[in-house]
């Protein structure tokens, strides 16, 4: 997984049936220090996250589908947790 920050939301009424009801978030990957690092990914929300939240970003299809709880969901990314704190160093 990667650390990420939710930077936006996407509304798409016409989408693949197995995505119905899924909330879609735009998530920017970031380093532990909070520096943006990597493209912005569109992920299904499996943690009730909101814009501005620091989150756990899952970037693998099978696991993302499992996080959404739907068999054979056409997804390759999911937000699976909201981060409260990050501690680094000794």
């Amino acid at each position, binding site marked *: 997984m990667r650390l990420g920050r939710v*930077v936006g*939301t996407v509304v798409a009424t016409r989408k693949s049936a*197995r995505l119905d009801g899924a909330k*879609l978030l735009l998530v920017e990957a970031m380093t532990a220090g909070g520096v943006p690092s990597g493209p912005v990914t*569109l992920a299904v929300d499996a943690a009730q996250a909101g814009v501005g939240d620091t989150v756990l970003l899952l970037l693998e*299809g099978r696991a993302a589908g499992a996080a959404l709880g739907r068999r*054979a969901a056409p997804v*390759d990314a999911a937000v699976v947790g909201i981060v409260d704190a990050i501690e680094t160093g000794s």
Partner: protein
Amino acid sequence: MQLARIVGTVVATRKDDNLRGLKLLLVQPLAPDGRPSGRSLVGVDAVGAGVGETVFFVRGREASFPFLPRQVPTDATVVGSVDHWSAGAAGGRAPGEKQA
């Protein structure tokens, strides 16, 4: 998945049988501010998207899932047509094709 815009279509009469009857779209990934980001790619259409539409696509093995049980050989499939999106100061409304 990735936010993107359909910038063209691809016609291929000689192709894998399991791609028959499916529309091939030229897809340009977008940054949240709507500007192109990264290389365009060819994706299979699963939602009836057309040129100019803002969409999102899925990559990898899951890209074949919308067509199951048929085994479609694709690593990128357009699985959503975007009505609007917000991203900080940026964001946008899908141009034109969504009448109120």
